[in-house]
C-alpha cells in the first residue's frame, strides 16, 4: 500500500513511471552486489548444514549462542551474520527439522532450537553430501593426495 501511495505522489510530481518502478529493484540489486563482493560466499550455501551440525553436537541452542559457537570454533574466520541466520533457522523450523521451546531467562524469553527426528536424518544426509563434496573438491584441487 505505501508503494502505491509513493507511486501516485511521484507521478503527480511528473516523474516517469518506468523510473519509479525501476527504483523498487535497487535493494535487491544491492543485495546481489553484496553477495558477489563478499569473500564468504563459499560458506553461504552450507549455512543450514552448519546450523544442523551445531545443534546435533550441542543439543538445544538459541540464535545468539549459535553465532558465538561458530565464531569460537573457527577462531573468528566464519562469522554468521544475523540477517542470514534467522531466515535459515525459520526455514528449517518450518520444514519440520527443528523444534522450538521457550524459556524465561533473566528478564526475557529465550527461544531454544533442537533437532527433531527428521532433523537428525537431514543432518546425516547433509553431512554425507558435504563429505562427498569435499572429496570431489580435493580431487580437483589437489590430485596427488587423492
Amino acid at each position, binding site marked *: 500500500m505505501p508503494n502505491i501511495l509513493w507511486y501516485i505522489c511521484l507521478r503527480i510530481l511528473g516523474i516517469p513511471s518506468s523510473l519509479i518502478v525501476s527504483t523498487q529493484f535497487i535493494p535487491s540489486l544491492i543485495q546481489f552486489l553484496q553477495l558477489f563482493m563478499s569473500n564468504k560466499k563459499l560458506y553461504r550455501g552450507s549455512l543450514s548444514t552448519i546450523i544442523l551440525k551445531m545443534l546435533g553436537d550441542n543439543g538445544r541452542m538459541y540464535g545468539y549462542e549459535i553465532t558465538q559457537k561458530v565464531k569460537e570454533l573457527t577462531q573468528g574466520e566464519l562469522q554468521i551474520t544475523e540477517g542470514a541466520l534467522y531466515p535459515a533457522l525459520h526455514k528449517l523450523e518450518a520444514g519440520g527439522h527443528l523444534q522450538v521451546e521457550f524459556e524465561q531467562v533473566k*528478564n*526475557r*524469553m529465550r527461544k531454544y532450537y533442537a533437532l527433531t527426528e527428521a532433523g537428525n536424518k537431514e543432518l546425516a544426509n547433509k553431512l554425507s553430501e558435504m563429505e562427498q563434496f569435499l572429496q570431489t573438491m580435493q580431487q580437483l584441487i589437489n590430485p596427488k593426495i587423492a
Partner: protein
Amino acid sequence: MKELSKSDIQQLFDFTQQHRVRHLDVQIELVDHLASAIEVKITQNPNLSFQEALDQTYAEFGIFGFGKLEQEKQDAVEKQILRNVRNYVQSFLTPPRIFLTLLAMLPVYQLLNQVPNPLLFTRMLFGGLFFAGIFVYYYWLIVKRKMMRTYLEVKTIISTVGHVLIFFHVALTFCLQEETMTRPLAVIIAVWTVLSIVATIGMFQYAYFSVKKIEERYVGMVNLSI
C-alpha cells in the same frame, strides 16, 4: 556478566517495533539476541552506553536490518503449508476414499438431472457454498484476530487457507457462464462441488489443528514477556 533491566528489555521491544517487526513471535527472538549481544558488549567494555551497544549490534544485521526477516519467515511458513497440503492430498488418494468421493458425486449429478431448472439450481448451489465458506472464514478471522496480529505463523496459515478457498470458489463461477445444461457440464459441476466441499473442510481442519499446535507452544508466553 551485566544484566539488562526490565525497562531495557521493554526498550528493545519498542526498538524492534519501530523497525517494522510487528509480530511478537519474531520480536521475542530478536530481543533475546540483541540483549545477549549487548550484555556481552557492555561487560567487555564498561564505558559503552546501552544505546551505543544497541547501535553496534543492530549494525551487525547488515544494511537491511530486520527488514526482510518477517517476509522470509512468512515465505518459509507458506511454502511449508503448501507442502503439507500436497502431502495431505497424496495421502488422501487411497482407493476407498476415491471411491467414496465418486459416490458422493452421484447424488449431485442425479439432482441436476431431476430439478426443473438445473442452471438456476447450480447457481444457488454455488452461491450457497460460496457464502457458507466466506461466512465460516470470516467468523474464524474475527475469533483469531488477536492471534493473527500477535503471531506471524498464525497469520500466514490463516491467509494461505483463505487463498486456497478463494481458488476453489472463484473457479466455480466459470461454470455459471454457460447458457444450457449439458451432460459434461453436469459432470464437471458434480465433481467440482464435491471437491470444493472436501477441500474446504480439509483446509479448515488443517488450519484448526495447526493453530491449536501453535497456541499450545506459545501458551503463557505473552504474560511472561510483556
